[in-house]
């Protein structure tokens, strides 16, 4: 177990009076290991930026504690926390050129000039901004400002690097290139970083662990694979993954040696009882009505199985996305070959029990993933 760099303990944030104001962050507990890259992933307003700003010290914590490198920091001003941050709005100092913006903190720390120059050169090359170092912030594009702001944060020796939507303004090609380079840069120097993003690809590509947030609540905190394969609840299951997971309510029952999932609209999924581990089967049957989820990649067309009527069929150049009316709802499936089905056509789908995620209908908590209990 590696050293813990950051620990959030029961952190709450209210905007306005505690208990009455807007409850933006709810009781977050999180440990970040030294040298890890963490992505705070969520839609806008989910509390991810509030969390980041509390770690930086720009927002007070309403309740709870923040420890950084073993020190209790949540009462300290930003200057004493020893963190670096790249801002979503860039926030370059408008009165000095890009080079001085990037070198600012190093110069203030009185590092030797040669070292400052070489570090600026390295980070500027990495982010492809070597050619604009002598320009003023208001004369460069948004994407360039964003990279300058990112460079200003990454160049620092801080305990923790906070990156708020660091690549939001970059064009896709550059973003893909820089993702790899930034990750290499951070890992090579052993930095610890927290990245706020609403882009799943970015989170998956950069992060060692992803913290999925929604409604101020930390929904799940795990590796990209864990998040994808073992979503902790219905929210994470449907939020992470593109296209999103298909979910539908079912009533589970056993008839003979078969386990039946009765879908809405009179459809029925029947599996051999031993297709599920006994404990999984028991957990599902105990509840009776549950939510079943299946990723679009895992839905297969077949000869038998419940019927669905095709609504759209789009070829995206490398995969087909088929949407079909299914059990009073919609079902999306992805195929890697060009699917030859027309709109209005009836297809039959097969859902492998190993691909099913089962969630509690009320709480949304995961019950099982394939053969295993959640």
């Amino acid at each position, binding site marked *: 177990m590696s050293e813990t760099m950051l620990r959030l303990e029961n952190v709450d944030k209210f905007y306005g009076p505690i208990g009455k104001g807007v409850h933006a962050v709810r009781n977050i507990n999180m440990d970040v290991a030294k040298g890890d890259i963490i992505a705070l992933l969520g839609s806008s307003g989910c509390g991810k930026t509030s969390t980041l700003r509390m770690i*930086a*010290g*720009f927002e007070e914590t309403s309740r709870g504690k923040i420890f950084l490198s073993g020190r209790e920091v949540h009462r300290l*001003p*930003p*200057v004493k*926390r020893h*963190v*670096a*941050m790249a*801002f*979503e*709005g*860039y*926030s*370059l*100092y*408008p*009165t000095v050129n890009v080079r001085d913006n990037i070198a*600012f*903190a190093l110069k*203030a*720390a009185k590092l030797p000039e040669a070292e400052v120059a070489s570090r600026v050169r390295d980070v500027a090359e990495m982010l492809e901004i070597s050619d604009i170092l002598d320009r003023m912030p208001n004369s460069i594009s948004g994407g360039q400002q964003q990279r300058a*702001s990112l460079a*200003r944060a990454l160049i*620092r020796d801080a305990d923790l690097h906070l990156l708020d939507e660091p690549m939001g303004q970059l064009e896709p090609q550059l973003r893909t290139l820089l993702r790899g380079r930034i990750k290499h840069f951070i890992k090579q120097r052993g930095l610890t970083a927290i990245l706020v993003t609403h882009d799943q690809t970015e989170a998956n590509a950069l992060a060692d662990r992803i913290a999925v947030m929604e409604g101020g609540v930390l929904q799940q905190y795990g590796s990209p694979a864990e998040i994808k394969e073992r979503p902790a609840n219905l929210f994470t299951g449907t939020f992470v993954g593109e296209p999103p997971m298909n979910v539908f309510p079912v009533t589970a029952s056993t008839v003979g040696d078969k386990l039946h999932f009765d879908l809405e609209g009179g459809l029925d999924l029947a599996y051999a009882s031993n297709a599920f581990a006994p404990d999984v089967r028991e957990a599902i049957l105990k509840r009776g009505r549950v939510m079943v989820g299946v990723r679009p990649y895992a839905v297969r067309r077949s000869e038998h199985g419940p019927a669905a009527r095709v609504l759209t069929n789009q070829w995206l150049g490398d995969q087909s996305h088929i949407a079909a009316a299914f059990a009073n709802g919609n079902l999306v499936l992805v195929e890697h070959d060009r699917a030859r089905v027309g709109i209005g056509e009836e297809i039959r789908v097969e859902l492998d029990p190993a691909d099913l995620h089962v969630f509690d209908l009320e709480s949304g908590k995961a019950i099982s993933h394939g053969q295993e209990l959640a």
Partner: protein
Amino acid sequence: MEHTSTLEKVLRGTAITLVILFFMFPIFWIFLMSFQTNETILRVPPSIVFDPTLSNYTALITGKLDTAAGTLEISFMKNLWNSLFLSAASVAVGLVLGVPAAYAFARLKFRGSEDIAFTLLSFRFAPPLLVLLPLTIYFQQIGLADTYLGLIWVYQLIVLPLILWIVRGYFEDIPADVEYAYRIAGHSWGATFRKIALPLAGPGIAAAGLLAFIFAWNNFVFALVLASADKQPVTVGALAFVTASGIQYGQVAAGIVLSILPTFALALYAQRYLVEGLSLGAVKG
């Protein structure tokens, strides 16, 4: 405006000329009056042909006013100095108090902040006469009547709201994240205020200071009531030219020319800041 026709150009030129005539003529006429004696000023019909004389300026500068009723002692130069001192000191105090306050109002959300800011602004639209009487009584009781300190204090009613509201708008225009970036790079709150907020709001602060100076300079009623002759600014001092033997128009005109010179020079010098300040700040012209 690349394709302006000749007609448009002529019309615009005419309109501008008319406006300039309308606003500049009184100043031009006062300038002419300041080189004339009362007799040439008051002749009917008026004429712009006359023998120029410097007697008005001499009288003002030497402090000896010759009237039909004899020689009067006037303290115009002292008044001018008073104006300069009062306005400059008021603005200096106003900046020291108002700029940090404006920063607080722009950056910090605290209970009642809007109410306090609005109350301060309301000093600008309450008529001075409303507070003058009680103020006079208070000032006499606590010994502030007829002192520079007392006047500078009262002048804060004029300069402080102005500085506060213009500068606040400027601070609000600076993205807070620029300051956060500076603070997280290892600087204290105070250093951030000095090195980031103040320089970036510089033009606004200059404009607010300038405007406040002009407003303070133009004040009449506070100084009229609260100060005696040797503390009064030019706006009040000019009353001395209304003498028992008639109004000394020549000296009044010369007094006006001398008293608008400092603000005029200041405004010309800082015209750019003034326009920026008025168009970007919270208080629009």
